[in-house]
């Protein structure tokens, strides 16, 4: 009973924050609202007896990623987001597709509710840090190794894209711009 009440509390908070995130025109407010979504999700994870995921949610999303997002917003000094008149008809299409998606989600919920109840083992150790660690280094050893390659490659890639342009490349930019100017004339 308490669990249900808590779920609705946090879920409601998450949905409100999500709506506020989409609604606000100032990107900074949107970012802060997103933090609210992450924190309420993390609370839901706690009520579902998954403390590890809850902690990771706070650490990675609310902590690291959102700090980065806020930094970028501050550094870029963004203006308020102005609606694009040119793409107004897309709102109608998007709204229509959104309704379809919502109907689909409700259908899935309905089907799950009608499905026979699966008994939950009260002694299950799923979601605990120890269990996750053990699974990572036994059953899921190979995925962990692949993630290693993936992360290394992502670092190489981002360094490569962020590096200062070399002299020949800068010359290419100039050349290109001159060419474009030539086409305009």
């Amino acid at each position, binding site marked *: 009973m308490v669990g249900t009440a808590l779920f609705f509390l946090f879920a409601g908070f998450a949905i409100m924050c999500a709506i506020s995130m989409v609604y606000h025109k100032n990107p900074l407010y949107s970012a802060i609202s997103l933090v609210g979504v992450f924190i309420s999700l993390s609370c839901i994870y706690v009520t579902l007896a998954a403390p590890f995921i809850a902690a990771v949610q706070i650490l990675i999303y609310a902590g690291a990623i959102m700090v980065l997002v806020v930094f970028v917003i501050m550094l870029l000094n963004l203006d308020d987001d102005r609606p694009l008149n040119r793409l107004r008809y897309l709102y109608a299409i998007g709204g229509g597709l959104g309704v379809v998606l919502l109907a*689909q989600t409700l*259908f*899935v919920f*309905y*089907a*799950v509710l*009608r*499905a*026979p109840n699966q008994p939950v083992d009260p002694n299950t*150790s799923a979601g605990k840090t*120890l*269990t996750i660690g*053990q*699974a990572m*280094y*036994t*059953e*899921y*050893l*190979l*995925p962990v190794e*692949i*993630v290693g*390659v*993936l992360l*290394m*490659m*992502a670092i*190489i*890639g*981002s*360094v*490569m*894209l962020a*590096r200062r*342009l*070399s002299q*020949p*490349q*800068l010359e*290419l*930019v100039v*050349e*290109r711009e001159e*060419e474009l100017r030539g086409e305009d004339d």
Partner: protein
Amino acid sequence: MNMFLFAELTVPDPNVSVILPEMIVAVAGVIVMLYDSFFPKQRAVSGAIAIIGLALSAVVLATMWGGNVPATSWNGMIAHDNLRLSFSFVFLFVSAMTVLISTVWVERENVPAGEYHALLLFATFGMMMMSAGNDLVIIFLGLETLSIATYVMAGLRRADLKSNESAMKYFILGSFASAFLLYGMALIYGATGSTNLTEIAGKIAAPNFPVNFPALLLAGGAMMVIGFGFKIAMAPFHIWTPDVYEGAPTPVTAFMAAGPKAAAFASFLRVFVLGLPLVAGVQASGYLHESWTTALAVMAMVTIIVGNVAAIMQDNVKRMLAYSSIAHAGYALVGFIGAGMAKTDQARDEAIASVAFYMLTYAVTNMGAFAIVTLLSQKNDRRTQFEDYNGIGFKSPLLAFSLSLFMLSLFGLPLTAGFMGKILVFSSALGSGNLLVTALVVVAVIGSAISAYYYLRMIVVMFFRERTTEWIAPKITTAIGAVLVIAVIGVFYLGLFSDGLIQRFSRPGAAVITKAEK
């Protein structure tokens, strides 16, 4: 510490020899990085290391064909079957060709060669994991490894706005597609309680599978169709293709058109044909099977029509090839649906082999065509309009004749690779005897007829148009020459003597041996 938990530990079951080909490729990537950090001025050595690594991996893979390898290993995460073997060869071939094609470009535009080759090798590693992965986790990680490497490679020409646009579009839309794919995987996991494809197939086949879970399965399957459909450039998820292919550096475009597409097909086949099979008498699997085959058949028709019709209207050669690659994804989907509809296991394996063979023929032809486009495009990919090809036919006959050959093979002229590929996928689809699939094959044949316009236009432009501007014949370097020779021989070999290879691809060699062993 809870001692009883440790007693339940799963044994990791590491089997290094099974993933040796993948590991060789990844290690070659690391060696390239290390070498490049000591000799940053080098241009060719890292490419040579990459080619050696890819060749070594291919040799190891060849020894595993029919060798004594378990059908699944790493707790069922890695499958060893013909699907993995045949597609892995396609990936290795594509990567090696890309290294050769990009020699010109690396030289011309001062690309950081070490990082570029390392990214290419890691992307290949990801592709091979995608074809070998028998677990949704492995498939997703392989796809991400491949995608992130490709996003960066598309934006390598940082001084060019078009390249930036290409990388940004690919990155944002690709991440979106990955999110769909992941959501779909989560729903499938929710419905079946497993990420392992063999177990998922077993759960679906169980006669007492809860009747209401098809809702989750259907939603999950639809999400995965979107995710994979984006990667293979299937309509209506193809919108990104022309812009990304046009803006990316030409060698990278060559890679993207042949490699990631084939990799996505490998995973797509494994998840849908092997992971969500049709089981007689089970309602849930019937629903699921009927809906995905129907949806894919309709989308394949749209893909073929959109790709071919839009290609007619292009003035840029790279955009034309991008639309042609969309159309080719549609033809390969015909074989895919044939595999899904197959009535026997043997027919299914043959249909899967036909898709692998199709991707190989497309890769061979495409690599050759893009090699020539790279050579002619000059610095910054400036010369990629049809006008730039005006009248070069008799001035650079070698280039013009081989490009014409590749165009004819893409069109599917008899005696070329493209013809054999199309025949195989169409016949495997017709074998199912389903009305919708027959209609799909008819659409595909009509689409091929339409494609004659823009493939032949290329030939007409090269041989029968007057050139108004001055023409300086580009110097054919050794590497590009090698690519052209391999591609021309490949087109004729696959078109004329492909019997042995097709049987290799479809013979259930690996599986039979492990069964006998047990």
